[in-house]
């Protein structure tokens, strides 16, 4: 059974979240072969950037904390990768970030010409002092970056939002009005901090990092629920989805697709197939379809 999303046909409802694997065509292809409906390239920035020193990603049992720090070869430094991706047999989202509206515009225009299926603007990454976060917590800056990017691209635009926004639904509506074709929510929660008490130091080299995994799922579900009420464009819901039942819950909140990231850690690279199969099994056992349950939690 295939599904439709922004005029594209996808094999199921699962999406590889940005920042997980995503570093090369080969590995994206493997994720796709393991049941993922739509894969996301690791975020592309305006210049070559190393990201932070390690430790950058730590498992906390109930999820992860990370401050990888937006490493990127830089959008002008990826010709080999684009050449390889040109001959792909799977749909991709190109995630981008910038430090100013002009940087977003420049990166988006260039990347759009490389013909990914979708472009996602990360206006929500909490892990860098200069990049991202500032746009996604404020209505005016969100609108400016969305409309600037929309004006230079020819493919559908997904905007990835942060739960740190005081009113995420209001930001989502602002993005929709500025031309966004879909919303992706949520990015990691926080920032949080973990201190090693023997050395008396934060464990992450960047000290603070975003939380992901099962511990943030209720926040993600609430955000998607609020956004669904505010907008009419589709939502990619993510944050702590581990199982098919988690995915069903997210769809009931209003998501059209479900993103998976941290669960790769706990259930392996084939988590996409597992989640898709579990969703199908649940729907079948309840004699329901995806359409029946989408936004179902909104009934009075």
């Amino acid at each position: 059974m295939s599904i439709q999303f922004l005029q594209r046909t996808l094999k199921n409802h699962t999406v590889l979240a940005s920042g997980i694997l995503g570093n090369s065509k080969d590995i994206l292809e493997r994720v796709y072969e393991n049941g993922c409906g739509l894969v996301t390239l690791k975020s592309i920035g305006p210049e070559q950037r190393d990201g932070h020193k390690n430790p950058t990603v730590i498992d906390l049992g109930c999820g992860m904390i990370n401050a990888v720090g937006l490493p990127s070869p830089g959008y002008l430094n990826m010709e080999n990768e684009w050449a390889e991706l040109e001959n792909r047999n799977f749909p991709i989202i190109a995630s981008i970030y910038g430090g100013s509206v002009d940087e977003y515009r420049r990166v988006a225009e260039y990347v759009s010409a490389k013909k990914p299926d979708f472009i996602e603007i990360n206006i929500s990454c909490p892990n860098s002092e200069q990049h991202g976060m500032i746009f996604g917590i404020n209505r005016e800056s969100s609108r400016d970056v969305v409309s600037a990017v929309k004006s230079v691209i020819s493919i559908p635009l997904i905007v990835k939002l942060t739960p740190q926004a005081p009113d995420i639904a209001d930001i989502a509506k602002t993005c929709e009005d500025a031309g966004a074709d879909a919303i992706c929510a949520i990015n990691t929660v926080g920032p949080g901090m973990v201190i090693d008490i023997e050395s008396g130091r934060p464990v992450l080299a960047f000290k603070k990092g975003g939380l992901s995994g099962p511990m943030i799922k209720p926040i993600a579900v609430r955000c998607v629920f609020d956004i669904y009420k505010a907008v009419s464009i589709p939502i990619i819901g993510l944050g702590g989805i581990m199982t098919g039942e988690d995915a069903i819950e997210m769809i009931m909140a209003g998501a059209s697709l479900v993103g998976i990231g941290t669960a790769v850690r706990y259930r392996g690279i084939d988590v996409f197939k597992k989640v898709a199969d579990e969703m199908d099994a649940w729907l079948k056992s309840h004699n329901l379809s995806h359409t029946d349950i989408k936004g179902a939690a909104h009934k009075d």
Partner: protein
Amino acid sequence: MTTKPITDQKPVMLRVTNKKMENPGYATLFFDFNLIFKPGQFIMVWIPGLDEKPYTISHHSKNKFAVTIEAKGIFSRKALTLEKGDLVGIRGPFGNGFDIRPGQNAAVVAGGCGMAPLATLVEGLPESITFIHGARSKDFILFPDRFTIPREFCTDDGSFGHKGLVTDLLAHRITHGKPLDMVYTCGPEIMMYKVFELCETHGIPCQVSLERYMRCGFGVCGACVCGKQVVCKDGPVFHSKALREMKDFNKKALLKSGKEVDLSLYFSWRCQ
């Protein structure tokens, strides 16, 4: 001393209980801790305030383990200055480790500091194996007196053993002894590639231990991908079948930024 278990979650702090300078460029750091691991697996070693890097276990006994570090970049040069009593964070072990086969006719081929992950493997293999060990010079032969199994040595400068490459010795062994049923190797990637090629020519299964820049250690961040393989999770040890399909083996690697470069550029960057 801590009795908290070391896990693949947040680091557990251990004090260096002993340090041995193996030669001017290699140091072994010992820790008193009962670590459950399999030869070829690795741990992430965190020096608070500096960085965190992957290292394989070079010594293992019931209440002790060690890592052997070659001074190359900023982190490893600092690691060589650590002293008894200094605190480092450990998480792991990660990765698959060697797939240890019971055959009597295996060969172990070590190059330089690549001896480190092979040491605990050798200690569990029968006396009948072939053991080949190369280094740039006599001083850089790691653990020269450690094993009961006899070793054939070679050095680049001829200062110890055969003057030449480990593949010279392996090729000779292949044509002058019982058929080998497995070759385990770790060392410079070009060396491992040549070992792999030789094994392919003679139909001998092979396991190599790869190295790439790593972050998470458990297969989510993607920093260490090599072809379709995630080195920290699917590896670091790969069998011949995976190596045949791994087009980046001995060719390409990702820098910290994620930029794909030729392996020579990657290794010169790693030594900065």
